[in-house]
């Protein structure tokens, strides 16, 4: 399969999964379950990552600007860095690793044990039953996770600056809020919406394509994570180009 047909196949899979009758009466609980799976279950991991992102950002920024710029620059720099780039991209990569692989493995196992055939024979559209809730669930959960990660990183960064870098929290906060641009915050969120689509679609796509047995299920999980991560980075560039370019 060449690159163009792969892109076409992936896109048509997404369209087939989302542009169908949603039958919300039957689908809403599965969407909520995916919001829980992707959102709540990823939260501890995201909080750990965000905490260290906040710490690393403040230490690195302090190292670069210490003594040459006003101290509130720390808040401004770390804030913009986290909201525009680090928050959305690291949250998306963590969710890719955690959720795209589990989606591919779960759907792949269903494929090899004929559970997807069983859905078809019961006249239940497997795209609606399996893919739609995962895509919509991730679409809802990822931006929320991103905001939580950004808040966590900035809070930890501010506290570190206050206690270890002799930058009072008020000064850090002044830099953060004075140089806050809604466009940057919402630009970051816009990125995470795009990321959510490619993460969930990758997981479902590679799960659906499984033919064979356990080995193929493992391969599908790996492909899903690798593809989702590459697509996240590509989209990061493209969206940055459009919004901030």
């Amino acid at each position, binding site marked *: 399969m060449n690159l163009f047909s792969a892109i076409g196949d992936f896109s048509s899979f997404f369209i087939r999964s989302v542009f169908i009758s949603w039958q919300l009466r039957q689908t809403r609980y599965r969407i909520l379950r995916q919001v829980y799976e992707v959102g709540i279950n990823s939260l501890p991991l995201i909080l750990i990552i965000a905490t260290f992102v906040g710490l690393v950002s403040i230490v690195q920024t302090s190292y670069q600007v210490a003594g040459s710029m006003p101290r509130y620059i720390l808040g401004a720099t770390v804030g913009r860095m986290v909201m525009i780039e680090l928050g959305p991209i690291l949250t998306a990569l963590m969710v890719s690793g955690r959720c795209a692989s589990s989606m591919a493995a779960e759907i792949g196992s269903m494929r090899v*044990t004929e559970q997807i055939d069983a859905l078809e024979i*019961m*006249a239940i559209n497997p795209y609606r039953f399996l893919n739609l809730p995962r895509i919509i669930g991730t679409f809802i959960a990822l931006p929320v996770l991103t905001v939580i990660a950004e808040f966590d990183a900035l809070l930890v960064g501010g506290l570190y600056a206050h206690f270890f870098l002799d930058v009072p929290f008020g000064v850090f906060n002044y830099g953060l809020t004075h140089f806050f641009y809604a466009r940057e915050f919402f630009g970051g969120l816009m990125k995470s919406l795009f990321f959510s689509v490619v993460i969930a679609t990758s997981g479902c796509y590679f799960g659906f394509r499984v033919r064979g047995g356990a080995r193929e299920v493992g391969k599908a999980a790996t492909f899903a994570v690798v593809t989702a991560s590459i697509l996240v980075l590509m989209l990061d560039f493209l969206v940055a180009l459009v919004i901030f370019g």
Partner: protein
Amino acid sequence: MIEIRNLSKRFDSLVVLDDVSFRVNDASLVVVLGPSGTGKTVLLKAMLGLLPVDSGEVLFDGREIQTATEKEIYDIRKQVGFVFQGTALFDSMNVADNIALPLCEHTTLSAKEIRKRLCSLLEVVGMAGKANLYPQSLSGGMKRLVAVARALALNPKYLFYDEPTTGLDPIMTDRVVGLIKNLKKSHTSSGIVVTHDLETAKAVGDEIYMLKKGRIKRLKKIEKELYD
């Protein structure tokens, strides 16, 4: 009535179905007998449009499935209950949710009505009281019974059984065969049983066909023709 006309299917150079034609009359159970690997499951899946065929047609009450739209295919499939060889129960759901799934998806029954239907289905297959178990904790035979209950959920006009007794011990085999015979009497639905087990074929079949090397042939004097 289901009519299969000149159905052919090959995988690369391997001919699995070669001009297969037969008919399943209303209220009759047709058995397709054949050794493992002859394409019995392929036949069932091709009949339901799960596998594309090279040529031929399958008509459910005069409606051809191969040329039907997705909605029409789903309408036809709603009339079919299918018991998979590997049961294909959803392992993330318990017995109750497995059986209730088609009811939740295709009917507007209330939760209470679904529970009532669920209990009656579990009683029919002799699995009352097992609603909260998960497929992982059931034996092969019990899974088969739950799969039958799930297939019956929408009260289908046709029942398809794919190797319903394969891998079961003699007692469970008797139980499943008895269930198929009872369902034939009580539900008056027609269906197809594909099996390689001659005893099961003789016990449940109104008509028996033999599938071998892609060709299908009706058997009248079973032992003699099989021997030949």
